[in-house]
C-alpha cells in the first residue's frame, strides 16, 4: 500500500508539473488567444443549452449557423474549434459577419463590442437568433459574456430569450440572469 500511495503521489506531482507547463505555454501565446478560444468554447456550450423553434431549421440535419461579427480572430478560432462538432444533432457552421446586415438563417450571432453591434442586434431582433455579446453588457443581447477577474461570466436575459423564441435551459439560467 505504501508503494502504491507513493506511486499515486508521484503521479499527482507529474500532473501538476504538466499543468504548470501548459499555463506557461498559454502565457507564452499571444494575449487574447486564450480568451478567444474560451469564447469560442462558450459559444459552442451555450448553444448546447438553448433550443430553437423547429422552424429555425429547414431540415433536421441542417447546419446550425453561427455568425461572428466584429472579431475575425474569434471567427477563425471558432471555426477551428467547432469543426466536426454537433449541437442537437446539427453540424455547426461559422460565418463571419461584416458591417452588412446579417444574413437570414443565422442561429447564433456573436456581436463583439463594436459600434455596429446595436444595428446588428436590431436586425435579428424578434428572430430566433441567439445573440451573444461580450465586453460591455448589451440590453438587447440574450447572452452577455462578462469578465469577472480571470473568469468569464455568462449572463442570460430571459426576456430577450423569450423575444427571440428561444428556450434556455434552467441550468444555464442558474448561472445568472438579468
Amino acid at each position, binding site marked *: 500500500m505504501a508503494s502504491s500511495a507513493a506511486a499515486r503521489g508521484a503521479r499527482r506531482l507529474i500532473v501538476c508539473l504538466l499543468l504548470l507547463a501548459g499555463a506557461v505555454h498559454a502565457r507564452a501565446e499571444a494575449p487574447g488567444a486564450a480568451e478567444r478560444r474560451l469564447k469560442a468554447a462558450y459559444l459552442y*456550450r*451555450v448553444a*448546447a*443549452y438553448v433550443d430553437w423553434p423547429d422552424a429555425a431549421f429547414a431540415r433536421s440535419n441542417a447546419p446550425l449557423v453561427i455568425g461572428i461579427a466584429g472579431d475575425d480572430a474569434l471567427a477563425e478560432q471558432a471555426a477551428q474549434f467547432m469543426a466536426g462538432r*454537433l449541437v442537437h444533432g446539427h453540424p455547426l457552421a461559422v460565418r463571419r459577419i461584416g458591417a452588412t446586415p446579417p444574413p437570414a438563417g443565422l442561429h447564433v450571432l456573436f456581436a463583439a463590442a463594436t459600434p455596429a453591434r446595436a444595428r446588428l442586434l436590431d436586425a435579428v431582433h424578434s428572430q430566433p437568433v441567439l445573440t451573444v455579446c461580450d465586453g460591455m453588457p448589451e440590453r438587447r443581447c440574450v447572452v452577455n459574456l462578462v469578465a469577472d477577474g480571470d473568469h468569464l461570466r*455568462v449572463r442570460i436575459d430571459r426576456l430577450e430569450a423569450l423575444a427571440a423564441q428561444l428556450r434556455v*435551459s434552467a*441550468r444555464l439560467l442558474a*448561472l445568472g440572469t438579468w
Partner: protein
Amino acid sequence: MARPMLRRRSIREKLVTIVMSTTLAALVVSVGSVVAYDLRSYRRALLNDLATQAELVGHMTSAALAFDDARLAGENLALLRSRPSVRAAAIYDEHGALFATYLAPGETGAFPVRPAKGGKPVRAGAKESYLPEGDEVVLYKPISENGDLLGTVYLRSENQLIVRVRDYFMICAGVTLLALLTAWLLVRRLGHTITTPIDAITGIAREVVARRDYSRRAPRISEDEAADLVDSFNAMLSEIEQRTRALEDSNREIAREAEERARAQQEVMRLNAGLEARVQERTAQLELANSELELAIEEARAANQAKSAFLSSMSHELRTPLNAILGFAQILASKDMPTTPEQKQEFAGHILKSGRHLLTLINEILDLAKVEAGALSLSMEPVPLAEVMLECQSMIAPLAATRGIRVLFPEAPAVRVQADRTRLKQVLLNLLSNAVKYNRDGGAVIVDCARPAPQRLRLSVQDTGMGLTPEQVANLFQPFNRLGQEAGTQEGTGIGLVVTRRLVEMMGGEIGVASSPGTGSVFSIELTVAEPAGVAAAAPSAAGTSAAPARSADGGAGATAARTVLYIEDNPANLKLVQEIVRFRPDLRLMCAPDGHFGLSLARSHLPDVILMDLNLPGLSGFEVLAQLRREPDTARIPAIAVSANAMRADIERALAAGFARYLTKPIDIGQFNEAIDGVLATRRVDESQPQ
C-alpha cells in the same frame, strides 16, 4: 433399567433434534434467501440512489462546469445536505482539477487530487464506478454534455449495506432462536403423542420379557402407525403365547415319550436278561446235544469198527469150514492119495459136518442181515409153549448127551405165548445150545418157567459154565464175539445171540443176562402171554408126526411107473449133483437142459411130469420159461419147482406167486428134494385121476 430410559429419552431427543434441525434448516434457507434477496435489492437500490444523486448533481452542475462557475457548483453540491449518508462530495473539471467540494457536517477528510479509479482517468460517457473503501462507498460519475467530458462527480457515502447486514444478522439470530425455542416447546408438548404409545409398548414388552407373561397386551392409545404397531405387537404376543403353549405341550409330550422310552428300555433290558438266560440255556442244550452227538459219532465209529471187525470175522468164519470141506474133498478126489473106505466115510462125515456148519453160518448171517435191515417179518400167533419146549428138548438132547450134560426141563405150563413159532424155537434152541456148548463137561442146564406178571412169561436157561465177567456181559450181544473162543474148543458162529436178542425184541419180549464168573450164567427171556388155553396143545404135534408116514407112503406108491423129470440148469456141478440124487430113484427118469430155450423145446417134445429149473438162467430167466410154459396148452399143467440159491423170503414168495409149485434153496437138502418131487408128483397124480 437405565438403558431403556436412555433409549426412550434418546427417541425424544432424536425427535427434538429432527424437529430443531428441520426448523433450523427451513429458517436458514428461508431467512437466508429473503435476506440475500433483500440485501441484493437494497444494495442495488443504494447504488442506484447514489448514482442517481451523482447524476443529478452532475446534470445540475454541468452548466456550472461548462461556464466555469465554481460557486454554482458548490451550491449544487451543498444541496446534498438533505442526504446525511453522503459524507463528502466533489466535482472535478474536465482536466481533473478539483472544481467544487462538499463535506457533510462533522465530516473531515481530504479529497483525491484527481478523479481516478485504479489510476485510470475518467472518460466522458463512462458509467459510474464504485469503490468500496472500508465502511464507505466512493462513486465517480463523469459529467458529459453533448459528448464532451465536462467533469467528474465524486461522492463518498456511508456503506449502509454493512449496517443493514449487521442488523439482518441480529434479526436472523433472534428470529432463529425464537423459532427454535418455539419448535422445542412444541416438540416437548406434542412429542408425547408419539412417544407415549411407544412407551406403553416398550413397557409391556419389557414386562413380557422380564416375567415371560405372554398374556399381557399393549393398550391402544392412539389411532396411527403406533396403533398398528400395538395391533401387530399384540398379534405377535398372542402368536408367541400360542407357540409357547404348543412348545410346552410338545415338551411335556417329549418328556412323556422319554419316560415311555425309558420304560421300554427297561423292558428291553429285562427281555435281554431273559434272552441271555435263554441263550445260556440253549447253549447248555447245544453243548448237551454236542456231547450227545459226539457220543453218537463215537457209537457210529464203534459200530463201523464193529462192522469192519464183523466182516473180517465173517470172512474168517466162512473160510474155516470151507477149509475142512475143500481139504477133505481134495483128499477124496485125489488119486495119489488112496484112502480106505473107512477113511472115506470119515472124511465125508467131516465134509458134511463142515458144510452144515457153513450153511448154519450163512443162514444166521442172513437172519442177522434181515434183522439189521428190518426186512425180517414175523407171523405172530399164539404158540403153545409146551409143544415148542418138547421139540427143543428132543433136539438138544443128542448134543447134550455127547458131553454128558443133563438138561432139566420143568413141567411145561399149559400156556400160549404171542410169538412166531419158528423164531421162538430158534431162540430157545440158540440159548440151549449155548448153554450146552459153554458148559463144563458133566454139567447141567436148567430151564425154568415163571410168571412175573399175569400177562408175562419168563423162560430162563441156566448153565454151570465158567460164567461171564461184567465186561464180557457188556460185549455179549456183539456179532462174532464168541466167548470161550479163547479156549478154541467150541464151534460157534458168534451171531446167534445177536439174532436171538433181536428176534425176542421183535416179538415184543425182553432178553436178560445174569452171570457170576466161575458159577455160570442165566439167560432169560420174557414174552407176552396170549391166552390161558392149553387143551389144543397136543393137536398140532400129532398132525406134524402123521405127515411123515404119509409122505413115505406116497413115495412107495410112485414106484410103479417111471416119471419124467426135466431139469433146466446152466451150472454143470449142480446138474451132476441132481443126476446123482435121481440115480438112487428108479422111479424117476431125468432129462437135462443147459438153458431156457432148450428146456422149452424138451418140454414141448417130451411133456415131462415135473420140471425143475434154476431161476437165474442165461437168456431166458426161470420166470420167463415158466410163463412160456403156461401159455402153451400142452405144457400149461406141468408142475414146476424152482431151485435157486436165493434164499430170501421175498424171492421165495415171488416165485410161488409166479406159479412154481415148490421152491428149493441151494444147497440142496436131499431129503427135502425128494419130498418136494414126491409131493408135486402126488398132487399131479390126483389131478390126472380126477378128470377120469
